[in-house]
């Protein structure tokens, strides 16, 4: 009986831990301020940095971060960057900061962050860390009064597909994967230590209005909208180019199939003639014939990413238009008074 109760060490080591899915990312106020400071200082160039924290159950806590130096020239050695990282981590370890990398953050311009590099960076991180997240911050949108911070993760099904680098139509239909499934957005929670919260409450009495409100109620909305639309139109051009590639592929495919059919017919007729003449029939396939060479199917990854981008722009436009509507009606009401 004792044997039943006590599982051998080997058994326990063999059972794999089921990782609970990541449900929420908890960010420290300190991290938010650091990210904002770094991204804003280097606007308009895009910057990145590393996130440090802890992985607790279904929540990923981000407790600290440090920025990466910007690489101006390409001859900046990889070792330098790695050295910087190691040095920072070592120093932070000495002052008891959580030393685990849980992801990275990057700034973006008008929400145009869905690129292949992002996916590649994700895959790189994913090999070493079980759970990592990418935080995207948009300093432009934040100057409108919205804290444009979001946490992204690649969905698991997409990662499997990417590993085998197989983006043909059948595979995608099999897994029922569409462009919405590439990135998963994870809700973000903000937490502050009690000490900091006490300080902030003391130091800044509840002012009735703050700079944030001033930003939100500014009426001049056109520049932002214009830029958004510009980007949207560019993306549509890219998308139409991708579509043309597909059309080309399909046309080639159908032409090749027509050729195959024609050749097959000819072969069959030939075989019938030979049978009549009493000779052996020739095989119905001929792999050496170039019409049987399979046409490579273009990867759909790019079109997915572009689609994602477009959808992002549309979302931004929506949100922004909502704000503008409210502001316009407000102006109307004030004017009447």
């Amino acid at each position, binding site marked *: 009986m004792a044997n039943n109760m006590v599982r051998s060490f080997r058994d326990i080591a063999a059972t794999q831990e089921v990782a609970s899915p990541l449900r929420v990312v908890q960010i*420290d*106020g*300190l991290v938010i*301020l*650091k990210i904002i*400071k*770094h991204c804003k*200082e280097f606007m308009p160039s895009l910057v990145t940095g590393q996130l440090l924290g802890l992985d607790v159950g279904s929540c990923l806590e981000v407790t600290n971060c440090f*920025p990466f*130096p910007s690489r101006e020239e390409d001859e900046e050695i990889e070792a330098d960057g790695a050295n*910087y990282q190691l040095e*920072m981590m070592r*120093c932070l370890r*000495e*002052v008891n900061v959580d030393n685990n990398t849980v992801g990275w953050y990057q700034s973006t311009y008008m929400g145009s962050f869905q690129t292949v590099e992002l996916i590649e960076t994700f895959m790189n991180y994913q090999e070493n860390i079980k759970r990592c997240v990418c935080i995207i911050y948009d300093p432009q949108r934040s100057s409108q009064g*919205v*804290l444009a*911070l979001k946490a992204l993760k690649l969905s698991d099904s997409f990662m499997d597909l990417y590993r085998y680098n197989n983006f043909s*139509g*059948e595979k995608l*239909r099999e897994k029922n994967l*569409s*462009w919405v499934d590439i990135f998963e957005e994870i809700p*973000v*929670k*903000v937490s*502050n*230590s009690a*000490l*900091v*919260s*006490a*300080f*902030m409450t*003391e*130091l*800044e009495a509840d002012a*009735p*209005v*703050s*700079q*944030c*409100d001033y930003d*939100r*109620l500014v009426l001049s909305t056109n520049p932002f*909208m214009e830029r958004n639309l510009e980007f949207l139109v560019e993306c*549509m051009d890219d998308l139409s180019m991708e579509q043309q590639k*597909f059309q080309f592929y*399909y046309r080639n*495919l159908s032409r090749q199939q027509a050729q195959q059919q024609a050749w097959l017919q000819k072969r069959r007729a030939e075989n019938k003639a030979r049978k009549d003449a009493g000779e052996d029939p020739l095989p119905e396939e001929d792999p050496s014939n170039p019409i049987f060479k399979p046409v490579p199917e273009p990867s*759909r990854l790019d079109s997915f990413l572009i689609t994602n981008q477009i959808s992002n722009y*549309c979302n931004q*436009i929506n*949100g*922004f*238009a909502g704000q*503008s509507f409210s*502001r316009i009606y407000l*102006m109307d009401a004030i*004017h009447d008074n």
Partner: protein
Amino acid sequence: MASGNTILQFSPSSTNLSAKIHPIVLFNICDSFLRRQDQAERVIGTLLGSISADGTVDIRNSYCVPHNESSDQVAVDIEYHHSMLVSHQRVNPKEVIVGWYSTGSGVSGGSALIHEFYSREVANPVHLTVDTGFSSGEASIKAYVGVNLSVGDRQLAAQFQEVPLDLRMLEAERVGFDILKKTTVDKLPNDLEGVEASMERLIVLIDEVYKYVDDVVEGRIPTDNSIGKYLADTVASIPRMSPAAFDKLFNDSLQDLLLVLYLGSLTRTQLGLAEKLNTAAQIL
């Protein structure tokens, strides 16, 4: 100087020296205080920032430096301090050392030694104390500058003189105090909620102003000309337009927005369709 009277010379504090602190520094300090070693009573660290021409010190960043303090000895990990400085300057070369901070109220003997160390790094270091123990019952953040007391030609002691500190936290305001004040915030507000909150606050403000004006008119509160003038200016700053012109402007903007919104929805529908067509095509 031949007379027997000792003359105490207080050199005047550097004129116009004042310090401005960014909220991230405060957050950093609190965080490092929370993570300190158990036996340490306080933490010290370096302040980074810039010094402007008129003497204002802008404190923009900070990092904690491990140190050991006993009743008569102070040991600071200088190598750590330098390597962190190098790392920080790789990201932001414009930030230089402007001083140092310590938690805990008041200034102790050890602080003088540390201050001397820092004055070897920068000309006039600013010493920031952050009272994390709330010993005086309220949050106190003070900045000091070291001033040398000399008698005649002899150095007597160094005095820490307090310097005005500007705690205006502009970036924190941008982020929204609601996020930074509470211990947990469940959801970041999105566009519409933000505008809603701002408008509510605006309404509250307008109500207050109404009430104030009513009170003054009825004589409940003594009149204050400056406030009255300010209000008159504010109301006059609404541009005057004829109703027709305003209506046209209003309708135009509204229609532009609606058009853009419609295009956005159209694009999304198009995307959905394209998606279906792309993957649904069967290859025979």
